[in-house]
């Protein structure tokens, strides 16, 4: 029998891999995909609890999370395109336009 803990284990592993991706990688695309992975892990958690308590509200929160992720994708990808056009790189260390002085 599949228990609640096994679903929680899978979703916590996915969330942790997302956090590790934000910490360890410097490619801005991979950082964005790690954020998506974190949202997905938490969505899986919500759906598991909806099934556990037999209540639909958690599934509706998951739908709202997916809609927010779609809005975030539109904004984030257009910002990535702007940054890549001006700097010709995907490295997060290059994007220091808000710091004063050392920026060209």
């Amino acid at each position, binding site marked *: *029998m*599949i*228990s*609640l*803990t*096994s*679903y*929680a*284990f*899978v979703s*916590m*592993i996915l969330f*942790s*891999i*997302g*956090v*590790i*991706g934000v*910490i*360890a*990688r*410097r*490619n801005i*695309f*991979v950082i964005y*995909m790690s954020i*998506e*992975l974190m949202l*997905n892990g938490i969505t*899986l958690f919500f*759906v*598991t609890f*909806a*099934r*556990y308590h037999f209540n*639909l*509200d958690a*599934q*509706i929160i*998951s*739908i709202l999370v997916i809609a*927010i*992720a*779609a*809005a975030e994708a*539109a*904004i984030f*990808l*257009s*910002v*990535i*395109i*702007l940054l*890549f*056009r001006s700097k*010709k*790189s*995907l*490295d997060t*260390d290059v994007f220091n336009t808000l710091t004063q002085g050392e920026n060209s």
Partner: protein
Amino acid sequence: MMADIIFLALSAFAIAGAIAMLINKSPIYSALGLLITMLSIGGLFALLSASFLFMVQIIVYAGAIMTLILFILMFLNIKEEDLPNEPKKYPLIGLGLILMIPLNVLVLKAISNLPSKDLGITNTDFGDIKPVGMALYNNWLVSFELISILLLVALVGSIVLAKRRKPKEKRGEQ
């Protein structure tokens, strides 16, 4: 018994795709790994008898968002020299692993104390499109409207961001 095997296969695919996303250098392969993860999570939703969310996951995430990411990746025509070199990638992954262990242990310990229930597929219409829509439009109407405003703002914002730099870009190309 069948559901156990499907659950194990889907969760193994999801975790393997996530790890492939984490360690691949090329962002195209990372996006394909994330696509495998999205599809497997959709399967897990179906296993949790959330059939409407299964369809939403396949259509919105695996269909729209991942297509947008892959399109942007191919549109930017990323070369090898555009990618950052990451000499400290694996030590930082190890550091993140150590940092995330206490949170995981805490959450799993809290979850494992809850009374166990059968999480198999139900015969009722739980998670179908009609009950989800009834709950969404009866109890969560304000959130739904706010999400629609948010999506409109994101649409307008991305158009403004993409349009504003055009004359500057033309000068920069010379």
